């Protein structure tokens, strides 16, 4: 058993942390308040070669695995979750193309990601399709050598600023079995009939773009189908281990950022003629926050490492995701408490962490769904 990060992994962490501190931290509050997409930071990250970490080498990426991606996510989210998500999400949906795409699709859709020339997304959720993914109602019908797509997609990350999306559609409504008859099709945002509505007023991760997509008779060439027709849902399912581990890493990042901010504030803030870190009530909070953050980190690294070994880790990924997001919410809450009144306004980053943390318990499968999965696996009940 080896608990140490390699030199290479340490270098990744250090360099990403340096970028986050120099380039993101000074502007994080501004993008949060104005709820605007951080184009300027995306450009800088593209120049610095920090985008598309897991895109294969031959398509311009660094070919990094889930553990390295988790380290990157952690460091970015520890400084600002909204901009962090904007940076890590430019390749959302790329997994499907990497695994099931043709050579032509890989060149078209993967190569522009690490250079920052394109931003992509994955479009699964719909207004009436949240946790019950198999109820997707967006239809794709074959017409000659084109797919004609109709339907609405909801809560789509990068929805109003992206260049193309891997859209989960129903292509064969008559297929037998709950999980059959769906397909993944790439839809470019400049196609006729594609419309996106930016969703504003979010509680947190406000720099990250979220939109509703409206697809009205959008025609895409048949070669935009990813993998096999009718297998889209099952193809999609394969990446839940990856995506849940990634959200676990987001939670760890938020907990790290919040617990470190609380530690430094507690040493600076003086009451009753001494720093509040001298009080045992505060010390115990800090001890608990840092301990739980470390526990979430170990669970996340273990999940990420196992995914990289090619293991099927449904239960572990759900444990990491559920625990990591819960720790993020709890630690951010305590960080605000330690800051007192100062934590209730956005002069300090903990106010942002408090709001940003909540989404990690909701997206990529809610806490409740994760617990269902863990219990299902424990009890051997299958799907």
């Amino acid at each position, binding site marked *: 058993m080896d608990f140490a990060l390699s*030199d*290479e992994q*340490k*270098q*990744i962490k250090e*360099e990403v942390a*340096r*970028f986050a501190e120099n380039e993101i931290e000074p502007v994080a509050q501004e993008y949060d308040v104005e709820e605007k997409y951080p184009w300027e930071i995306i450009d800088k990250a593209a120049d*610095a*070669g*920090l985008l598309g*970490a897991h895109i294969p*080498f031959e398509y*311009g*990426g*660094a*070919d*990094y695995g889930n553990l390295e991606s988790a380290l*990157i996510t952690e460091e970015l989210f520890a400084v600002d979750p909204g901009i962090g998500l904007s940076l890590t999400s430019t390749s959302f949906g790329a997994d499907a193309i990497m695994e099931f795409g043709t050579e032509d699709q890989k060149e078209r859709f993967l190569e522009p990601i*690490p250079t920052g020339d394109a931003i992509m997304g994955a479009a699964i959720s719909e207004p009436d399709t949240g946790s019950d993914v198999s109820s997707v109602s967006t239809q794709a019908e074959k017409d000659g050598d084109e797919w004609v797509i109709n339907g609405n997609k909801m809560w789509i990350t990068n929805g109003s600023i992206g260049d193309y999306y891997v859209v989960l559609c129903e292509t064969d409504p008559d297929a037998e079995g709950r999980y059959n008859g769906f397909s993944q099709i790439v839809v470019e945002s400049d196609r006729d009939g594609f419309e996106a509505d930016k969703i504003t007023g979010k509680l947190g991760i406000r720099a990250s773009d979220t939109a509703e997509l409206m697809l009205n008779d959008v025609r895409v060439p048949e070669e935009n189908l990813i993998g096999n027709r009718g297998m889209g849902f099952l193809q999609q399912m394969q990446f839940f281990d990856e995506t849940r581990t990634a959200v676990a890493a987001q939670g760890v990042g938020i907990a790290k950022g919040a617990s470190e901010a609380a530690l430094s504030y507690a040493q600076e803030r003086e009451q009753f003629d001494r720093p509040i870190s001298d009080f045992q009530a505060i010390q115990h909070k800090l001890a608990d926050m840092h301990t739980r953050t470390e526990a979430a980190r170990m669970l996340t690294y273990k999940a990420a490492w196992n995914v990289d070994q090619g293991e099927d880790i449904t239960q572990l990924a759900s444990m990491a995701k559920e625990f990591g997001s819960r720790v993020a919410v709890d630690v951010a809450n305590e960080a605000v408490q330690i800051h007192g009144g100062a934590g209730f306004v956005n002069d300090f980053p903990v106010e942002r962490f408090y709001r940003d943390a909540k989404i990690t318990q909701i997206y990529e499968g809610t806490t409740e769904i994760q617990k269902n999965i863990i219990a299902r696996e424990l009890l051997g009940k299958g799907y």
Partner: protein
Amino acid sequence: MKVLVTVKEVAAVEDEFEIDGTAIDEAYLEYDLNEWDDYAIEEGVQISESEDDVEVVSVTIGPERSEETIRMALAKGADRAVRVWDDSLEDAEMLDVEAKTNLLAAVVEEEEPDLVLSGVQADDDGFGATGVSLADEVGFEWAAVVNDLELDVEGGVASVRRELEGGVEELTDVDLPAVLTIQTGINEPRYASLRGIRQAQRKEIKPMTLDDLGLSADVAESDLEIVDMYEPETESDATLFEGSPDETAGQLAEVLRDGGVGQ
């Protein structure tokens, strides 16, 4: 063309630390790439990006731990690296300018670079002399505290701008081969890209011992001895002018004039 960039892993102390005799306890030290050397690497990599057939070789003197630092030079675009270390260097209390000069001179003889870039000074011991001393030893031309560089590869000339005291700058041409000591601000050092970090793991860091360089253990002998180590007393002396800009501007001007800054 070959560019040799000398880099050093420097020690930085934490805010609170303890001095143990003539050294600072290891527990309070963190190691990082010397800030000036980061600019030297960037300058070397920029040359390799703008000119054809340029090899950038990075060299450091340090224990195995320093590979992490020199690996960052490789991640930023240096082609390969040389790390000089030896048990007899490990035992030395300090490596002075003369020792480093001799070690680096042996590397220069081995590599035969056209241009050597070094940081103006190291952030820890701060001698600020190794680059120029190396030039003298190997018989290269040199320019110190360079904050702008134009290279004419075919003509074999480096046109440099040097920072002198009192805000004065000097423009001068230096014939290659040369050693230039690089000042911060000459460029904007890049972040190591993820791809670069990945690729750097496969680049060569060649370990070289004193034997490999044809040197004997007495290279580390020094006429210098550290006799004391203490924290300098700090004092602050700030004058705050309060009032309207009309009143305070005159007061500030007076202080500047008395201090010899303004006329």
